[in-house]
């Protein structure tokens, strides 16, 4: 086949047309992309715009890498300053029913003081059962209307007076944790302070007591709540910040009605596993729920870890009453 023949053949025609079509569409798309490109910044601002009902806002990401981002059971993942509104936007997440519940929360500011909560948006939920649908918009509104300085929201916790029966208590308490954590974090961030680690949320402070025995503190800790019910522990902490003894005296865990499995009897023998652990260990158990207690009763496990964390954080304050405390 000569060159001339090749240029007249069907094969050449096929190649030429296909290349032509490809090139034309490539160029066309490149031009269209130039006009229609949606930049990451635009996409992000669009998402924030939803929080402000479609208004255009400008945002500025804040560096929180050196801060303590674990506040009141929530993890602060990101923080933005909304420059034209003097608001802070917080992305916070905590554990809900199936996995992490992540929220976007706008916090209204006046100078360095928190004046209220703007809007709470459920950003993502790792919950295949979609309990989130049970939480209506009116409940998210409540965060805005019922904000009181210094008071924590507890719509999802059974037994509190704020409790709202939604059928999605775990998800709602995770949202509450996120909001509480966000407010606390922004308060500290705006005034330049640090966050004090606080695990006393579910501790019954009136009943709880302690004794000092040389370098060791012996705690007698009670927890509050209905589901699971109150726990009672004896916990010893030594000078190196390690748990030397951990005993569950009363287990508030319920008995599983269907299977008749008693979480309490599963859990109490495992409590030994907590001996010798430090605050770092306990905090990691609290975050992942993959700890040394394997019972299937997630919330009861959380209570046990919280009691341990409480005992460990209180140690310094008890031994040096002058330095710590509020």
């Amino acid at each position, binding site marked *: 086949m000569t060159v001339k023949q090749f240029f007249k053949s069907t094969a050449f025609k096929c190649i030429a047309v296909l290349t032509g079509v*490809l090139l034309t*569409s*490539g160029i066309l*798309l*490149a031009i269209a*992309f130039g006009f229609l*490109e949606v930049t990451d910044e635009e996409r992000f601002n669009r998402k924030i715009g939803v929080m402000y009902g479609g208004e255009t806002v400008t945002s500025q990401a804040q560096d929180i890498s050196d801060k303590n981002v674990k506040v009141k059971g929530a993890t602060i993942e990101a923080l933005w300053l909304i420059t034209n509104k003097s608001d802070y936007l917080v992305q916070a997440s905590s554990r809900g*029913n*199936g*996995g*992490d519940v992540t929220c976007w929360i706008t916090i209204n500011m006046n100078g360095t003081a928190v004046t209220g909560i703007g809007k709470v948006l459920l950003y*993502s939920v*790792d919950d*295949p*059962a979609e309990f989130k649908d049970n939480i209506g918009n009116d409940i998210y509104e409540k965060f805005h209307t019922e904000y009181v300085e210094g008071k924590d929201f507890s719509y999802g916790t059974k037994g509190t007076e704020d409790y709202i029966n939604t059928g999605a208590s775990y998800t709602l308490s995770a949202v509450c944790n996120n909001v509480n954590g966000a407010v606390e974090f922004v308060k500290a961030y705006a005034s330049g302070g640090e966050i004090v680690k606080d695990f006393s949320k579910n501790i019954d402070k009136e009943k709880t007591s302690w004794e000092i025995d040389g370098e060791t503190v012996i705690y007698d800790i009670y927890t509050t709540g209905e589901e699971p019910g109150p726990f009672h522990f004896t916990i010893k902490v030594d000078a190196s910040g390690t748990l030397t003894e951990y005993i569950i005296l009363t287990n508030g865990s319920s008995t599983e009605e269907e299977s008749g499995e008693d979480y309490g009897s599963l859990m109490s023998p495992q409590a030994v596993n907590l001996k010798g652990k430090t605050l770092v260990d306990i905090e990691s158990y609290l975050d992942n729920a993959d700890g040394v207690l394997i019972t299937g009763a997630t919330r009861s496990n959380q209570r046990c870890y919280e009691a341990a964390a409480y005992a460990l954080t209180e140690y310094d304050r008890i031994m040096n009453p002058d330095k710590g405390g509020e």
Partner: protein
Amino acid sequence: MNFVLLVLSAVLTNNFITVKTYGICPFLGVSKNTKSAVGMGVAVTIVMALATLVTYPIYKFIMTPLNITFLWIIFFIFVIAALVQMLEAIIRKVSPSLYNTMGVYLPLITTNCAVLGVTQLFNGVTELGAIVNGVTEGVWLNLGWAVLYSLFAGVGFTLVMIIMSGMREKLNCCKVSKSLEGFPISMIAAAFICMAFMVFAQIKV
């Protein structure tokens, strides 16, 4: 542990047919008997895994640095078409008997949503957390995980195809009213498979 979660997620929780509704055409079209359902399922599984193996690096190492990710549809569909052609030629050459059982379904696969759908899952638009609940949240899938996920998504596809073909073989022996014959009754049967799979959404990670 992650591996188990990935398998559960790909095969059951996020099943391609019953949850994502990808690849319904072959699901309804090629599920008349179990033999063809298995052939189609295996062919789709292989193409899905291979397509991810090829398109993921192309997206990550060629298209992203050149900032031409907006052309992904054209690139991916060409890669899939070429892959299917090659696979067909190879199978015909190497094993004619395999070609007779599986290869005949290959040309149908180019226009199967499941294949384009699975390659799209990993092209950086969606985060992993959205794909596999809680496997490695917020981190991009690396190539190995991506291919494994596609492979097991294909297994889930095959599983549902086989269940469906069994139901349809039984349906053939039943007398249904004339207007429900064919697609309508198959779809209602498929609805029950979907309902059964909805239970797996309750798996807690």
